[in-house]
């Protein structure tokens, strides 16, 4: 008990000067200090707590040369500038769509990512997919017959990607370059892609066990594949990056990133 008393007095010795110190300090200083403390705590909470907001990321994917970068700049600036070359790095930007900048009202900016289509750069797509609110898969409808297989393979990889399947990321398959006379129609492209994916389904499911990636099966077993079977929404649209005819893409984006 004595020890206790002893300690108490010791504590008193320490606390008393502090009390006096506090009393002595002007009120304003005290409040400022407290205010600062609160602000710091609130601020750090903002920073540290994970954002639970809905994502506003839209990804542009597709083979090299399908016109993703042009679309990116069409959506951002409403112009394709002096043209583009093969991308080596993703283009990223958070902005309000160009067509909406004239309109009144407040628009929610979109985080648009243009992922290069070169096969060596494909792994980059995995970095962006988990945060995607929607994906625009761009197809070159002019050269479609030559790239059909490669395009279907890439699309298959995207549609079976874990985060796409889990989060049911909506996919817009965009047939680009429709300004050209010889471009294929979107119905034709849809049919061809379905056919190709059907074949891939057969060959891919058997190698999936050898591969390290956990793949998800696409479509309903025993039935020919159709995009309507996939769990996430897959729709088709047409656009022309060069002439700036991108209204269908904008519509799609606004469907999933609410203004």
């Amino acid at each position, binding site marked *: 008990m004595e020890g206790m008393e002893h300690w108490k007095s010791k504590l008193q010795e320490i606390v008393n000067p502090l009390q006096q110190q506090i009393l002595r300090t002007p009120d304003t200083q005290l409040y400022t200090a407290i205010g600062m403390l609160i602000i710091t705590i609130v601020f750090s909470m903002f920073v540290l707590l994970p954002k639970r907001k809905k994502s506003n990321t839209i990804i542009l994917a597709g083979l*090299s*040369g399908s016109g993703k*970068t042009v679309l990116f*700049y069409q959506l951002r*600036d409403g*112009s394709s*500038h*002096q*043209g*583009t*070359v*093969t*991308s*080596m*790095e*993703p*283009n990223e930007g958070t902005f309000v769509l160009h067509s909406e900048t004239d309109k009144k009202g407040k628009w929610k900016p979109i985080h648009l990512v*243009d992922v*290069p289509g*070169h*096969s*060596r*750069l*494909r*792994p980059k797509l995995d970095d962006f997919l988990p945060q995607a609110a929607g994906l625009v898969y761009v197809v070159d409808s002019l050269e479609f017959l030559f790239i059909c*297989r*490669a395009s279907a*393979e890439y699309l298959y990889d995207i549609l079976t990607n874990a985060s796409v399947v889990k989060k049911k990321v909506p996919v817009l398959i965009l047939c680009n370059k429709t300004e050209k006379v010889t471009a294929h129609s979107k119905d034709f492209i849809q049919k061809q892609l379905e056919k190709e994916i059907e*074949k*891939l389904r*057969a*060959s*891919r499911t*058997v*190698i999936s066990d*050898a*591969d*390290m990636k956990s793949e998800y099966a696409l479509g309903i077993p025993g039935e020919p594949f159709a995009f309507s079977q996939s769990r996430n929404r897959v729709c088709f649209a047409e656009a022309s990056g060069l002439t700036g005819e991108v209204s269908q893409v904008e519509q799609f984006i606004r469907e999933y990133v609410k203004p």
Partner: protein
Amino acid sequence: MLTTMASLLIQSPTSMLKHKVHYVNQGNVFTCMALSTTIQSRRRGRRKYGSCLMAKASSSVKEDVLVKELSYISVSEKRDIGVISVHHVGILCENLERSLDFYQNILGLETNEARPDDKLPYRGAWLWVGSEMIHLMELPNPDPLTGRPEHGGRDRHTCIAIRDVSKLKGILDKAGIPYTLSRSGRPAIFTRDPDANALEFTQRSSPSISLYLLHACTAVHLSSSTAIRTLREKERRDLIVLQLENRYRNMLEQFLIFTRGGLVLWACRELTKALQGSPIDTLIRSCLLEERSGASSYNYDAAGVAYTLKWTFHNDFGLVFVAVYQRILHLLYVDDLLSMVKREFSVIYDPNRTEYGGFDDIYRQLRMEAEARAEELKKSSKLGGNTGSKKQAQTQKGKYDQGDKKGGSADLKNDGGNDDLDKGRKVENGHVNWGRSDEEVGLVGGVNGGDSLSSSNGAFDVNKLQKLRAKGGKKTDTVSTKGSKAEPKKKMTKKNRVWDNSPPEIKLDYTDPVTENRDEKSKFVAADEGESMMDKDDTISSDSEFEEDEKMENGAKVETKAKGWFSSVFHSIAGKANLEKVDLEPALKALKDRLMIKNVAEEIAEKLCESVAASLEGKKHASFTRVSSTVQAAMEEALVRILTPKHSIDILRDVYAAKEQGKPYVVVFIGVNGVGKSTNLAKVAYWLLQHKVSVMMAACDTFRSGAVEQLRTHARRLQIPIFEKGYEKDPAIVAKEAIQEATCNGSDVVLVDTAGRMQDNEPLMRALSKLINLNNPDLVLFVGEALVGNDAVDQLSKFNQKLADLSTSPSPRLIDGILLTKFDTIDDKVGAALSMVYVSGAPVMFVGCGQSYTDLKKLNVKSIVKTLLK
């Protein structure tokens, strides 16, 4: 319409263009364009003064041309239909044989065999005139045969440039063909062909052509007939080169500035000539993205064109600068121009801006400077001795880098002095002085550095010099522009230092650059303790050096280390302005060693490091990171990129595709001896069988005893058919029969086993090439063992090389994929996978990792990369 030479001269270029268009409209096959001029005009989109030059036939002075160039630019921008050159001249004749006799036997023109003459409804022939052609057409001639002006110069005519008019005169005399000489006394001769079409032959004097010829002669070590042919080709080429180089300096086909994201920011508008094919995209896809950006140039070949592309990066802004020019022109100024444009462009660059219309003028100015410099360099290199040893040049290079870097100090006076030092050095070496720095800096004192350094600078290699200049020039000029221009430069401020740099410069020459670097740094730190905190560049390099090279026992003093550690902490927190090559070097070296420990071929490790350095240099260093970790991250990215297959490696998909077409899918296994071709063939067969594909084996190893029996054993165990024809048969034929057999019995896949062969064994490689070309398999699988180190490069490159060289078809089949065997025996030394993929560009399709049939895997790129960098 048919203007004579003289009248052409006084006409405005615009009206000439009209004339030309008029020609075309009329469809008149006779043109009075002198063929010789096509050589000059073909180069540029601006052809107007190309034709002006034609008028100024023999001796147009360069300055003259430059003046013209400037005054005509406005015209050319307004009207440009994208003219390239005169392609051919059509000449009508009554009797093709008679005309051919004249053109071939008397004039000695060669026919262009490549051009078919049977596609047209009338008979004809194509004759080469330099790089252009004459098209002889057997058609009724609307022109009268009589009553034409006697002198061909007054008639519509075609002019061919030749080297010796007097010789032709003799030939014509002998053949009894009438001719007239030029009225104005030019060395030109006018004559008519059997159909009275007027021809002019004008002599083009080219004094140094003999020099070029000599060069051509020495360069050719071929059999005599080929030599003559090549010589002729070269002669023709060199003539073009010579004339072009004499007349014009601007010979770029295209100059582009674009972001790494792919947006073109600026394209040279003067060079309106459309590129053939898509060299830029090809460059990016097959060079820059394949981690080959450490190379200095890239050659692009497409139908009819051969371009060379050079590029440079601005890594901090993520910009790429690309220049495209015709391969035959060895443009010396391109490197220089690239670095100058890079420097100037980075000043005006703004990430939010996408139009740089105002850059046109700056570019034009830069180009002219670069050209002038290259010109002078060429002249001086002819005079000066080019005997400097490589090593010396390298030491010099190191010195320049350092000197220049330190030259970027804050006070103008100091850097001016340094600039002069550099200048002095260059002048003294018999090379060009910096016209630009002179103008812009305008500082006094030009020779003070030159004298003190004269002893240490010998003559040196010209090629090296070019690089040196580009490098040194880049940096010094940055400083000088800063000094003179008012434009703010945020990036530059951090680099500034206030050191006197003369002592190390003089010293450097004696030692190997690396050790010198180190010594110098420690010395500096010791001497200038008070200031080293400011000196971010150098301390970071010394500290990263010691972090990385601790095991390598560097001789740095304790003092240095302590300082290094402190500043390293400081740096990692503060972040550093821009990464310099010097900062990267130690980290890269450590990384290279690590790669080599993992069994990556040295050559490959070296190239990779260069490429990574190229991608990092000048980049902003992020806060809270060390240089080594930045480098490691970049390397990891590069490795993932390399190992990710370029095209799909889904064999089953391909098998199904082949099945649809009703033919078997043929896989040929090739490789050196004892790597496990047959064993892994059996494993692949087993894997295919599991996926309900019917497989057939073809025993085309007709060389090694027991090979067929070995395969037969596998076939029996796997219960699959085998096609064999015993030994001593031509494997190509056996394979062909096997494929026929498979087509008949409906097998989906044919696996062709071949004999193992060393890559240097010519006869066996020839046999392999024959097998592959004859059967055109769907997949050529190179089987290589994972144990191999430096030899991997040799094996793969030689196999590929031999397949390409020994092939008779124009598009030879190369290796499509790699099967890596004995992967279970190598622990973490997985470097062979990287070496092989890098060398061939083909993906690793399978990995063999054991003795049983099931031991076949796919390559896991991520784990390989992890292991490599562990």
